[in-house]
């Protein structure tokens, strides 16, 4: 199954998004990398690195992130893992995580998981 890493400036937000995704797809390998080591707001290179390793398999890993440094820090972690199959997805964090988890737990490929999450941006709520 494709691993899913949730990167956020907030530890609680990342954990919450992970819980929500797991509620919809309990089997999906989802890991949270939120906030800094001391619990304050920010994005941590080490936390993202560890989260990727914890859900990595040959099926690959997708990263969903909030904004700013979350995007740049995730980019740097990926650059330092050149032989791994990892991709960031430009999608809404919550909706993207839920559909990605469902797609992953249904054993869809990395490309399919990415498409599902990207399409989440087009769903209108009202």
């Amino acid at each position, binding site marked *: 199954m494709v691993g899913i890493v949730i990167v956020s400036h907030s530890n609680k937000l990342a954990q919450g998004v992970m819980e929500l995704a797991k509620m919809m797809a309990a089997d999906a390998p989802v890991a949270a990398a939120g906030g*800094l080591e001391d619990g*304050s*707001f*920010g*994005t*941590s*290179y*080490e936390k993202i690195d560890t989260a990727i390793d914890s859900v990595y398999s040959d099926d690959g890993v997708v990263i969903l992130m909030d904004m*700013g*440094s979350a995007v*740049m*820090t995730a*980019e*740097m972690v990926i650059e330092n893992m050149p032989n791994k199959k990892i991709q960031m997805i430009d999608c809404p964090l919550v909706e993207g995580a839920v559909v990605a988890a469902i797609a992953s737990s249904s054993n869809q490929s990395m490309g399919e998981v990415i498409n599902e999450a990207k399409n989440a941006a087009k769903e209108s709520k009202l």
Partner: protein
Amino acid sequence: MTDSKKITSIIKEIGNVIQKEKDFLTELDSFIGDADHGINMARGFKEVEKKLPGLEDKDVGTILKTVGMTLVSTVGGASGPLYGTAFMKAGMAIGAKNDIDGDDFITALNAAVEGIKMRGKSHEGEKTMLDALIPALNTIKNVYEENKDFKAALEQGVKAAEEGVEYTKTIIATKGQAILVKEALDIKIPVRHLHI
């Protein structure tokens, strides 16, 4: 020529200025940002300072790369990947040298600026640090090529960077959190220059 020991003492001095100006940097970031720049940078450079004694006998490339990686790991905000990439790219450009000269410095600064452009997906004219860095780089390059006087080149470079800062007050931000404040031009931000 500048050796590894001197490089570590320069980086320590950069850290000292950042610690000293922590509140000012945070204040700047409070006008249109999330008011954590000084706190973040001070945290990053405090960790850098701890590593410096162990780096004095390493080559300049290793020193700069270690500083970059430490900033990425500990700053936490957007400055982490930006400054981190700058130092790491500068370190890679210099490589395993124990002494560097003016030409090496220019090569390193050029690589750092290119790194910031790449990481921030940004270019000149977007009200970012590049508006100070690029004029500084160009001036240092031109002055040094002309007369090989590195001190004069640096002095002129600092002046060009300061002019760049003044220029940013006249343009509208198209990168970073500042774009959320469309009227950012009207906010009177008390910019002054930090001298190392």
